């Protein structure tokens, strides 16, 4: 349960990913609202990978804070074309698809820690942590 990777290769894997992330959140002792936040983040960022990079994966793992708190870390990785302008992509309402442009900024609000790295050569990695 410490760490597991979920493949993201088809639209159906979005459903699988949010289910697995929720189950792991339950196992880590998160309450209902946090389970819902984590499942929603998983759904948004997994869909971005399917939609914009085609495929990738999410690694879900238990996290430990320096102050002793426990939590959950989700790492979304793909080797797609990357995000040319991260600052713009993080803005509410920005979308190059036909989306609401809410996935990235919304996921940042649903997490305690949020980190995004992207380049055309290496693809995109988004890391989020939610503490209990």
């Amino acid at each position: 349960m410490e760490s597991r990777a979920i493949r993201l290769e088809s639209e159906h894997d979005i459903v699988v990913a949010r289910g697995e992330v929720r189950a792991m959140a339950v196992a880590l002792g998160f309450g209902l609202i946090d389970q819902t936040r984590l499942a929603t983040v998983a759904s948004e960022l997994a869909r971005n990978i399917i939609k914009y990079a085609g495929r990738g994966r999410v690694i879900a793992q238990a996290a430990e804070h320096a102050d002793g708190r426990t939590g959950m870390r989700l790492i979304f990785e793909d080797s797609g074309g990357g995000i040319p302008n991260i600052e713009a992509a993080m803005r509410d309402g920005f979308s190059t698809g036909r989306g609401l442009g809410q996935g990235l900024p919304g996921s940042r609000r649903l997490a305690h820690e949020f980190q995004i790295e992207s380049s055309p050569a290496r693809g995109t990695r988004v890391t989020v942590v939610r503490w209990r």
Partner: protein
Amino acid sequence: MNGAQRIPILKVGRVLVVPVQVDMDDQTVIGLQERILSELERTGARGVLIDISLLEMVDSFIGRMLSDIAAMARVMDARTVVVGIQPAVAITLVELGLELRGVDTVLNVDEGIKLLRDEFGADDDERDEEEAELQGEWHSFGEPRHQA
């Protein structure tokens, strides 16, 4: 195979009732949206009641579907009500930044039916006996009941 076929669309009086009972993948969401619109057209229903009480998560994709259905239904002179959103889902939606534009949300099915009835009047509810028979859990249009 179309996953959306698994979600029933019931007609209760002049309202389409859509009990969403599964965690929908994106194709199911799209298929459901299309079916609701074609049922609206076919039946001339005046209201759409989408019961999401069993949904454990609403993300931007499902949220957009709900807004889109409401907008398109409005063009067809029908009003959309979303019922039973779980508190944890509602909180998460707000933090995500979704406002479900144009969608009325109420707590339960009874309230939803009442709201829609007020909208187009009680006399309007000529009910379709045949379809009502199929429903089972829908006691009558006047007294909707959810079976536990």
